[in-house]
C-alpha cells in the first residue's frame, strides 16, 4: 500500500504541482510552436508522452544498472542523449513498418522530439529526485508526459479563442503565448502544497 501511495502522489506531483512545462520550463520550444490547434497539440502531447515514458525508463535503467555500479557517472549526459536519440530513431522505424496509421498521425513530431529539452530534462530530474525503483521511474516519466499534454492542450484551447480577439500587433505570436503561459503557471501554483 505504501508503494501505491508513493506512486500516486508522485504522479500527481509531476502532472500538477511540478508540471514540467509550467514550473520547470522544459519543452517550451514545441510548446510555443505546436499549441496553435487542439488536434495538433494533442498529437504532439501523445507523442511526447510515449517517447518520454520510453526514454525515462531506459535511461533510468542504464543509470542504475550500468553507470552507477561502474562509477561512470561522468559519462551520464553523453549516454542519456545518445540513448534518447537512438530510442526515438528506433521507435520511428518500428512504427513506420508495423503501425503506418499511427506513424502518419504522429507525423513530423517524432524527429522533432529528440531535441525537445523535456525528454532529457525529465531523465535528469529522475536522477535529481533520487528515484530508486523502476516502477517509480516509469510512473514519473509517464506523468511527465501527461503533464506536458495537459499544459499544451489547455494552451491550444486558449490560443484558438485568442484568434478571435484583438491582440496588439507587436504581441501577436510568441509574446502573447508566453504571457498566457505565465498566467497558466500562476493558476497551477495553486496546486502547490496539495500533497
Amino acid at each position, binding site marked *: 500500500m*505504501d508503494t501505491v501511495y508513493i506512486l500516486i502522489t508522485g504522479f500527481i506531483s509531476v502532472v500538477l504541482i511540478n508540471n514540467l512545462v509550467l514550473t520547470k520550463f522544459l519543452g517550451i520550444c514545441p510548446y510555443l510552436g505546436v499549441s496553435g490547434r487542439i488536434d495538433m497539440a494533442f498529437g504532439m502531447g501523445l507523442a511526447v508522452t510515449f517517447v518520454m515514458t520510453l526514454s525515462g525508463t531506459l535511461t533510468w535503467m542504464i543509470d542504475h544498472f550500468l553507470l552507477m555500479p561502474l562509477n561512470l557517472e*561522468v559519462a551520464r549526459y*553523453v549516454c542519456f542523449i545518445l540513448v534518447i536519440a537512438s530510442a526515438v530513431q528506433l521507435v520511428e522505424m518500428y512504427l513506420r513498418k508495423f503501425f503506418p496509421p499511427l506513424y502518419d498521425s504522429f507525423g513530423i513530431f517524432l524527429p522533432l522530439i529528440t531535441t525537445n529539452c523535456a525528454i532529457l530534462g525529465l531523465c535528469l530530474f529522475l536522477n535529481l529526485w533520487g528515484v530508486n525503483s523502476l516502477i517509480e521511474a516509469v510512473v514519473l516519466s509517464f506523468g511527465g508526459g501527461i503533464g506536458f499534454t495537459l499544459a499544451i492542450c489547455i494552451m491550444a484551447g486558449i490560443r484558438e479563442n485568442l484568434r478571435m480577439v484583438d491582440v496588439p500587433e507587436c504581441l501577436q505570436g510568441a509574446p502573447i503565448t508566453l504571457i498566457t503561459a505565465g498566467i497558466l503557471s500562476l493558476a497551477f501554483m495553486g496546486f*502547490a502544497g496539495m500533497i
Partner: protein
Amino acid sequence: MRSLKHFFEQSWLLIVASFFFGLLIAATNAALSPRIEMNKVTKLTSLARGLLPQAEKFAPLRERIEIQGSDGKQQEVAVYKALADDSTVGWTFKAVGSGFADKIELVVAVDEAFETLAGFDVLMSNETPGFGDQIKASFFRDQFAGAPAAGLSLVNTGNTEEIDDKIVAISGATVSSTAVVETINHYLAQVKEQLQKKGLIGNGSES
C-alpha cells in the same frame, strides 16, 4: 565482409571521435574530481561551523548511519562529529525534506549528548521568496538554538524569544515552516536512535 568494410568506411570518424571525446572527459574528470568532492564537504562543514562555533574540525563518522526517510525509503545520512581538542563538542548532519516548492536541505547541529539543538541552517531551498524563503531568516532560526532535541511542535502564535519546544511558524509560510520542523523532528529521532545503537552516544557513554 563488404558490408563490414562499408560500415567502417561510413563510421570511422564516429568511432575515432568517440575515443577522443571519451579520453577528454576522463582526463577532465580525473583532474577535477578531488576538488569537486572537497567542495561538497566544505559546504556542509562551513555552515555547521556557524552553528557550533566552539568546534575546531568536523570528522565524518566511520560508521554508516541509515534512517528511514519520510517517504518510507532507506537513505544514508552524512553525520559528522564536531571536535575541539579531540573531544566531542557536538554532532552535525544533513537533513532533507519536502517543502512547498521543492526539496529543502538543512544542516542540523546538536550538542554532544544529543539533548539540545544547537540550531539549523539552510543548505538548499527553493521556497517562495519573501515567504517560505524566511526559513533562512534569523528570527525563525534563532528559535531553534537551545531548543530540546526532540518533539518540536509548530504553533501559530507565541513568544519567539522563549526557547522551548514550541516553534512559532512564519506567517504566510505555514507549509515551509511545517516542513522544517517535521524534517528536523524526523531526523533527530532517527539519528539519535541510530547513534545510540552504534554505542556512540546515550546512557552517559560518549566517545
